[in-house]
């Protein structure tokens, strides 16, 4: 085990753990935001630069500070490393800059975006964004397109985290979409008109940190905070059948995987509980699901603002 200090809090972690994951073991606001890193997707991370942190001391053996901020999602900890995240002004400064970079070409169409309320870029903008923009140029625009009959791609909103590409590589047998072109005109595309059609392709929606990939079966149906997220399960031959169904009254408006507080699909019985397209897109009838009870939602989340019944389990967790 190696010892590392993050924002004055000491934690012991396995050698090879990244700074971000060490911070997640501490939890709370010590954890840097991550727009592209996704612990369940191998090779993800390093690209968005929102998780940059300051390393005030490299290790016990070499206590020199690192000159540049480092990407906490891809830098492994060393014994005796001292990391500054929320205690570093430089980190906040640069995180604000990254937020600005991510927003200059973003359409800011939250009022009509299905992702609003559970969008990581929205959270990031709330924490680190400025009121106005200094960007006077024309924004880069693309037309929204369908990739498959159930998935909508709004390239304008994309932050090029590459998560959906990793999903296609790691969850499906044949990837048909990817990153085309380069620089600030890089885009997610299938290049030729082609449907992303695979039992697990719908997971690109769950991993998308913004509203670039959205569920067409839920498009414009409701704001997420008007819905009640319920844990539900079903007998499914393709996936574990453990999902969250988002309900309005007795109606199921949409189905998603069960996401943890970092927006990542939870592990259930040691396996990441990705759900299949049939569960996600086709099972919209209450009778198809065994509703287990309300989903625990962070009380600071906008989704909790319209919160309904107080769940006993939440209460019991509070007491413990």
């Amino acid at each position, binding site marked *: 085990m190696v010892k590392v200090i993050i924002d004055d809090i000491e934690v012991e972690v396995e050698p090879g753990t990244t700074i971000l994951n060490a911070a997640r073991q501490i939890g709370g606001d010590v954890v840097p935001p991550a727009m592209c890193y996704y612990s369940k997707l191998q090779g993800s991370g390093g690209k968005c630069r929102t998780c940059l942190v300051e390393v005030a001391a490299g290790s016990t053996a070499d206590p020199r500070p690192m000159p540049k901020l480092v990407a906490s999602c891809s830098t492994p900890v060393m014994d005796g490393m001292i990391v500054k995240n929320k205690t570093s002004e430089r980190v906040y400064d640069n995180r604000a800059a990254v937020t600005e970079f991510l927003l200059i070409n973003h359409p800011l169409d939250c009022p009509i975006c299905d992702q609003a309320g559970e969008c990581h870029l929205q959270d990031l903008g709330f924490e680190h964004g400025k009121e106005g923009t200094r960007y006077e140029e024309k924004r880069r625009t693309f037309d929204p397109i369908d990739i498959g009959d159930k998935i909508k791609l709004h390239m304008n909103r994309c932050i090029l985290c590459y998560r959906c590409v990793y999903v296609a590589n790691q969850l499906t047998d044949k990837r048909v979409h990817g990153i*085309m072109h*380069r620089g600030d005109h890089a885009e997610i595309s299938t290049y030729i008109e082609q449907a992303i059609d695979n039992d697990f392709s719908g997971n690109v929606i769950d991993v998308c940190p913004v509203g670039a990939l959205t569920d067409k079966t839920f498009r414009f149906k409701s704001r997420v905070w008007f819905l009640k997220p319920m844990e539900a399960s079903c007998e499914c031959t393709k996936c574990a059948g453990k999902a969250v169904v988002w309900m309005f009254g007795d109606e199921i408006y949409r189905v998603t995987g069960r996401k943890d507080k970092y927006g990542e699909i939870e592990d259930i019985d040691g396996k990441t509980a990705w759900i299949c397209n049939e569960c996600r897109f086709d099972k919209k009838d209450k009778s198809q699901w065994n509703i287990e009870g309300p989903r625990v939602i962070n009380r600071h989340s906008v989704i909790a603002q319209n919160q309904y019944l107080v769940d006993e389990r939440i209460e019991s967790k509070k007491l413990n």
Partner: protein
Amino acid sequence: MQENWTHKMSISVTHNSTDQAEPQFSAEKMVEVQRFINHYPEGKQKSALMRILHLAEEEFGGWLSVPTMNYVAGLLNIQPIEVYEVATFYTMFNIEKPGKVVLEVCRTGPCMLVGSDQIIEHIENKLDIKVGQTSADGMFTLKTAECLGACGYGPMLQCGKHYHEHLTPAKVDELLDTLRKEHSDK
């Protein structure tokens, strides 16, 4: 000066996939292809992709159509999307059908210092096209390129595998005439 690369964004994301007959390398070229693949260890045949794309562009009309890229994907036993990703990343590959002759004028700093802007303007006027367009007779496509490594010999342009350096408007005229003659019967 017109910006051609910003226009690239507006290229439609969908491409018609039925606009060309099935491409096929000749037996002679297949030997080349195999030689390129043999440069790499077993199972790493994807590494030959760029070399084969250059060859494919040369063989199949000076550009990479969707059938061409799918064909190359098949040769290397990789997914077509892996070829599309690469072909769109690297600027040398034409993913739109160009004219018979593609002129790429270097526009970067050192060439600009010695007059590349004037050369571009001259060609634009001469062919009555803007950067990124093809002349009405389908002969010439004018593009600009970033630094081609001929900084001391500028202004310059690349045409196929050839560099034409120390350009002047008179030399450009001469070059265009020669190229027109060379390619008019093809």
